[in-house]
Each structure stands twice: as C-alpha cells, then as structure tokens.
C-alpha cells in the first residue's frame, strides 16, 4: 500500500472528536422513567431481544469511524497495488556554509530552501523523492526514491556547514538518479555563473540575499611549553563596520587556576585581512568570537589545546665527535624534540654513522674528497627545501646507497633509500657545511620529514575544505571518529582522506584507543563573502510532459464508495435506533 498524498492521512484526526462525541453522548444526563416501553416504537425484531438495541450506538460509532478512515484514505490517494503512478522528483540542496546566512527576517537560506522544497514536492505531486546535498563530496540525504515525508524529514535534519565547492558533480549525479528529462530542483543562494551548462531538466532556485559580512577567515594556535600563541585573521566583506571587537577567551589549562579573556578592538581594512596575535600562559581551549551578524557561524571558533607529542631523537654509538657535536647543537635549539630511550624502536629518529641501520647516517667511509661546487640538488625534494650550498666546502667519502639527492661530480653527498633512510655523506672535520645555514636547514627538513611519518594527523588545525591527512602504522587497525560517525581508515603510512563535509572534532583511533585529535574550523573565506549571493529562479529547459502535472485519473475511488456506504449504513442504523 502506498499513498500519493500522505498528508491526507491527517484526516484521521477526525476520529478524535468523533470518539469524544461518542463518550460525551454516553455521559448525557439520564432521565429515569417508569416504563421505557411506552417511549419505544414497538418493533417485531426488538421484541426478540435487546441485543440490537444495545449495540446500535456502538454500530453507529464503528460506521462513522469507518467513514472517517475511508475519507482519509481517499484524501491520501491510497494505492493498494503498485500500478500507482510513480512520480519521482530529485531535490539537490547546496551544502555550503553560506546557506546558513540569515536573511532580513532572521530565517536562514536553508530554512527557506526547506519550505520551497516542501512546496515543490506538493505541487509536483511527487510520490518518490530523492534528496542530495552538494559538497566537496556529494551526499545522499534521502533515497534513492524515498517517501516524500521521509525525504523532507531528512532535509529538516540537514545542516549546511560545508566549504565552497562546485555543485556540478552533484547535479550530474542527480541527473543520473532522476533519469533523462525527469525533473530536478536545486536550491542554493547564488545564481548560476554565466556559461555554466546545466542539466536541461534542472530548475535552479537561488534564495540568497547579497549582504555585507565580517568573519574570521583563518585561525591558528601554537603551543610551546606553557605558552600559547593564537593568531587570527579577520576580514570584512563589503561595506560593513570599519572595526570590530574580537573577544578571545582562554579557558584554564592543565595546572592553571583561572583562564583569561581579552577583547581586541580590530580595525578592518577595506581589502585584505587584519591579523591579531595573542599570547596566553597555561591556556586550555581558546574560544574566539566576533559579534553576531548575518553569518554567525564564521565568527565563532574554538581552538582546542593540542597535546604536544615531541619527536624522540637518539644519537647512536659510533658517531664521530664532530658529527655528534654538530647534531647535539642542532637538537638543543629545535623545539618539540626529546631524547629517545635506547632500545625503543617505534617513532624514534636515530642518527648513526655510515654503514649502520640508522634512519639518518652522518659521516664518511673510504677516501675523503672535498668539493666546493658545483653542487647538483634534486629540485623540489622536501629534504632540500631552502638548502643553499653556495660557498660550502663539502668533504665526502664513498658514495652511500640509495637515490642521490645532492651530488658533486661523481660523488653522492646526500641520498635516500626506498625505505626512507637518509645518508649524509659528509666529513664535518674537513667541511664547513656545519657553519652555514644549509646545515640546520637540512637537518630541520629531516626532522620535518620524520614528523610527517609520526602516527596521527599531519595537521591538527584545518579549515573547511582542506583534506585530512593521517599517518598510520602497518599492522594496526585505525578508525576515524567524525562528528557524523565513524569510518575505518585503510592503508599504512601517509593516508590522504577527502575533505570533511563539515567542521568539528576528528579523532584517530588505533584499536579503539585515541591516538590523535584534529579540529576542522568552520572558516572559509569564500563562504564568508556574501556579496555575490542573490535570488533567482531559472526554469528547467525541458521536462517530460507527463511529469509536468500530477495525475488525478489514477486516483482510487473505492474509498469514496466505502465512505458513502458507511454513511448510508449509519443513517439506517441511527434511524432504527430512533
């Protein structure tokens, strides 16, 4: 059984006053009489027994209830078999953050889209509805071909918090779900850009309003020891206020007795952003808020305290004295680096001499040769970012194994093996490379690479639309806990995940234990810019004519017959009862 118009079932509500009237009539004040037979019209059948009389009222109630049910079924356009007319409508809703912008009446664009979608479903007489949400990854909210009530209910639960994106992949998916020439509706807050080729049966409805806005476009938190540095970028889009009060509230962290609240008066430039940098001691979560405006979502962020995970570094036995001295001087000035314990295999960056299994080998073997250039470096390799070797005298020994990264003539100065081991072929007692900037830069790149292979998120603070990247270890089972649920993470090493559909807190779990946490902030400068929003209704270019109107001819008429029969029977029964 299906219903062409399920709202018609609301007519069943008439049963409530019907039953109430029945009981109210039963509670009518009784009048005691000496002889009831003098009031009753004598009837031969009544003489046979009082059973018929006793149930006259109940029979009337049942018949009236049957009439109400039949009326509700008729209004709901009940279909017993599936020859019922199928009318499929595909709705697509923009899932970007700007859909949460308030209009002059205080309603969000998404709320207007919900109302418009419900109206569109009713007008089209849709029996099946599919709802999609656009985003960096298209999402199916209801369906395919769900009941209209369920589809609209899913739309009520939907929140548009996504990043700026191209809706076309979702629209093309919608066209595949709808079928060629079948109606589709897209609800957004911006008109289609010129030259955009839309599906021919798509009706584009923009419900936005152009307005000014002030919002955060980025936020960053950096913790060094007990000191927390919060950097905020505030932008003004359009002719909004020239300045704004920015409130930053630092909750007390571990070991701190009380938090701190600061209000910064930020002058907003006409173009570009204003940068605010604040420092707190012993801060826990930091809450940043701007005064509420038409898009309050981009004015409130919470920067959680990220637990520090220092990289453990160990120097192996056998390193020469110059190499050990140079490495220790570098490590002493490098933040978030801790000496690792001997014998610990996991997550330890081990420096050792040439010919060992250390992650990074420093030193030479064989006959040393000195070079002053020219040095050839593999362009674009992350280990060589900003490494400038001009003016360097580099003394190298026997070529190390692996892929050469820096060479001088036939000598391999730096190489990398398949498993990530790095060999620095340098004799520091005869070179001056440790006295130029290339040395700390090279080692910093090595440490950065080691951090990137550290289990957990490669970045802990992301903006909307930025992809997640996690590092996993082989042999373990990982799960990513999102605001919308949990999903397994497959693969070992550095695993790239698609950008999250919305902001929130993301936790990486290994075998059920939390490993690392990242937060996606609800900030996207392109979504905060509301100046280009507007209202427009672009009709579909072509729609199959049979879908252009609902079909009343398929309506089942037996409920109407049942309704009339019940009313006639009720009339007969009540007449007999009287």
């Amino acid at each position, binding site marked *: 059984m299906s219903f062409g118009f399920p709202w018609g079932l609301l007519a069943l509500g008439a049963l409530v006053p019907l039953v109430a009237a029945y009981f109210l009539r039963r509670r*009518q*004040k009784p009048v*005691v*009489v000496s002889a009831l037979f*003098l*009031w009753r019209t004598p009837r031969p059948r009544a003489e046979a027994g009082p059973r018929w009389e006793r149930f006259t009222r109940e029979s009337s109630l049942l018949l009236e209830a049957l009439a109400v049910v039949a009326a509700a079924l008729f209004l709901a356009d009940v279909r017993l078999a599936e020859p019922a007319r199928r009318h499929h409508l595909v709705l697509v809703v923009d899932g970007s953050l700007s859909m949460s912008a308030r209009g002059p009446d205080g309603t969000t664009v998404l709320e207007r889209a919900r109302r418009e979608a419900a109206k569109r479903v009713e007008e089209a007489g849709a029996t099946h509805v599919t709802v999609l949400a656009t985003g960096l990854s298209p999402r199916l909210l209801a369906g395919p071909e769900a009941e209209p009530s369920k589809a609209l209910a899913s739309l009520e639960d939907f929140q548009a918090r996504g990043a700026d994106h191209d809706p076309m992949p979702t629209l093309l998916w919608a066209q595949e779900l709808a079928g060629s020439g079948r109606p589709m509706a897209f609800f957004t807050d911006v008109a289609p850009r010129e030259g955009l080729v839309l599906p021919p049966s798509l009706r584009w409805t923009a419900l936005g309003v152009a307005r000014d806005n002030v919002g955060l476009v980025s936020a960053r938190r950096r913790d060094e020891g007990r000191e927390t540095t919060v950097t905020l970028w505030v932008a003004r889009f359009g002719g909004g206020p020239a300045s704004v009060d920015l409130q930053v509230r630092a909750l007390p962290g571990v070991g701190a007795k009380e938090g701190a609240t600061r209000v910064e008066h930020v002058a907003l430039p006409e173009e570009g952003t204003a940068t605010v940098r604040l420092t707190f001691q012993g801060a826990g979560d930091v809450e940043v808020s701007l005064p509420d405006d038409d898009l309050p979502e981009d004015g409130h962020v919470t920067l959680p305290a990220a637990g520090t995970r220092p990289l453990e570094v160990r120097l192996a036995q056998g390193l020469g004295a110059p190499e050990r001295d140079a490495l220790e001087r570098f490590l002493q000035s490098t933040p978030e680096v801790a000496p690792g314990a001997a014998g610990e295999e996991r997550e330890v960056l081990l420096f050792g001499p040439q010919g060992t299994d250390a992650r990074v080998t420093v030193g030479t073997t064989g006959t040393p040769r000195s070079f002053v250039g020219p040095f050839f470096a593999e362009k674009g390799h992350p280990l060589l970012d900003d490494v400038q070797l001009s003016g360097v005298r580099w003394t190298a020994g026997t070529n190390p194994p692996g892929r050469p990264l820096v060479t001088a003539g036939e000598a391999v100065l730096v190489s990398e093996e398949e498993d990530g081991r790095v060999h620095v072929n340098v004799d520091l007692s005869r070179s001056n490379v440790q006295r130029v900037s290339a040395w700390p830069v090279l080692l910093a790149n090595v440490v950065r690479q080691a951090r990137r292979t550290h289990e957990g998120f490669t970045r802990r603070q992301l903006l909307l639309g930025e992809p997640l990247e996690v590092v996993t270890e082989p042999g373990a089972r990982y799960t990513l806990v999102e605001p919308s649920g949990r999903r397994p993470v497959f693969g070992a090493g550095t695993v790239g995940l698609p950008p999250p559909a919305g902001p929130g807190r993301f936790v990486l779990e290994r075998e059920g234990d939390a490993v690392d946490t990242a937060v996606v902030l609800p900030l996207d400068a392109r979504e905060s810019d509301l100046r280009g929003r507007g209202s427009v209704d672009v009709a579909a270019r072509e729609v199959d004519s049979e879908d252009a109107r609902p079909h009343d001819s398929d309506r089942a008429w037996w409920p109407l017959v049942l309704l009339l029969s019940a009313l006639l029977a009720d009339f007969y029964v009540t007449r007999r009862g009287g």
Partner: protein
Amino acid sequence: MARLAPGLSLALPRVPHRGRVGEVRAASTGSSMELHDFRAYQPGDDLRQLDWNAVARTDELILRVRQDEVSPRVEVVVDASRSMALSERKGACAREVALLVCEVAARQGLSPTLRVAGVRGEQVQGPSCRAALRALEFEARDDLVAALGRMAPPRPCGLRVVVSDFLFEADLAALCARLSRGAAGLFLAQVLDAEDLSPSGGEGARLVDSESGAALEELLTQDVLAAYARRFTEHQRSLRGAALRARGTLLTASAEHPLEALVAGALRPLFVAGGGA
C-alpha cells in the same frame, strides 16, 4: 390519615365471605341466627339444626342451613418495584393508599393482610402493617408479574386491593385474572406520577428504565411526547378492560393530589363514607 380513617369503610362486595368469626355473612354454613337455606338431613349433620316444624309438616328430616358470620380478610398487595419510587411523591402516595386501606379495614373489624411484592415476598397482618409500610423499600428490579411469581399463592379473601402503577409490559388479562382469583372483590389502585401521566419535554435525553436499566436515546419533541401519550392511553384502556373482565375495578390516582382529594375522587369506589359493610 388519622382524620380520614374513622369516617371511612371499605366497600365490600355483596357476596358471602370467608374468614374468622365476625359480623359479615360468610360463605360457609355455620351456627349464626340467620337462616340461609333448608335441605334434607344427611347422616352426620347436627341434629340440633333439624327444623322440627318442617319435620312435623312433611315427615321428612329437614335441616336448617344457617350461615356463619365471619370477619372477611382484606388483602393489600403493594408493588415494591423501583418504578414506584420514581419520585418521592409517588412512593409516598403508594404507601398512604395502602396504609389507608389497612387502617380502614382494621377499624371495620376486618383482618387486613399486607403483601409486599418485592425482592422477597413479605406478608404481615394486623397492626404490623403500618410498621411494614413505613419500612417498605421500592427496590425490586422487575415488574409486579415477576414479583407475584416469587410470592406464595394467594389465599381466598374478601377483598384484594393491589397498589401499583401497572406500567409494565405483560399479559394484563392474565394478571388481572390471577389477582382476582379467590377474592370476592378486586380493586387495582394505580398510583402514577405526574411524569407518568404527562412527561415534560425539552432537550434530548437518555431515558433509562427504572427497573431494567435499559437506556434509550430520544429527542423529546412534541411528536415523541404525543406518541407517548397515545401509547399510555392505549395501555390504560387495556388495563381497564382486563380489570373489568376479572370483575375488578381500576382506580387511577395521581400522586400529585393529596390523599383527601383521592379518597373523594379517584379512590371513591373503594371507600364508603360513614362506615358500614
């Protein structure tokens, strides 16, 4: 009541009665001074009753048959069904009529017997009738016919007065025949409430039978009230005809009227002013 009873006597039928020794001519032969008949002597007859003058004239043993002088029984049957308590006035009127009959009978030298046709078939005699009537509860959930079935068979009596509203569906002819059985005279004292005689109309109501509890939804329009009046008249006509066929008299008393008015009006055939048998 105390003022009414001394000036009244029951209108006993002019036929011989049965009963204890008294002043009223009995149906049985006896030893009173009043000659009733003559007949031939039969063995076992009292030789003292032989009419020797007739023996001398006819040479046959002629016996004087004399009637007994008895005090005939008066039986008052009160319907104790719930419809008799439809209103306080109706119940009180029924009690008063029954009590007046008992009082007048006692003053008249008759022996009144009160039989209550209720849940239990009670029967009291003589002075206890007043107390029994005072304690009478109209609580039977069925009609007079069913209540009579629970009672002992009626004994012959001189006069039987049945106090009821007679508003029930039954074979009225059979009922009246049953009530008149063994009685020299029968009076059906029908006590009715004003609502029985002329029900008030108005809005719709749920009519509930006072005895069976059966309900009927009805809109009390003028047409419905007229139909009730029509059926009531027909019922009364049937009852009166059945009473006449059983040599009884139907007396319809409205509970609205005081007892003096009823004695002077509706119940006048039952009582004779100034006393006398």
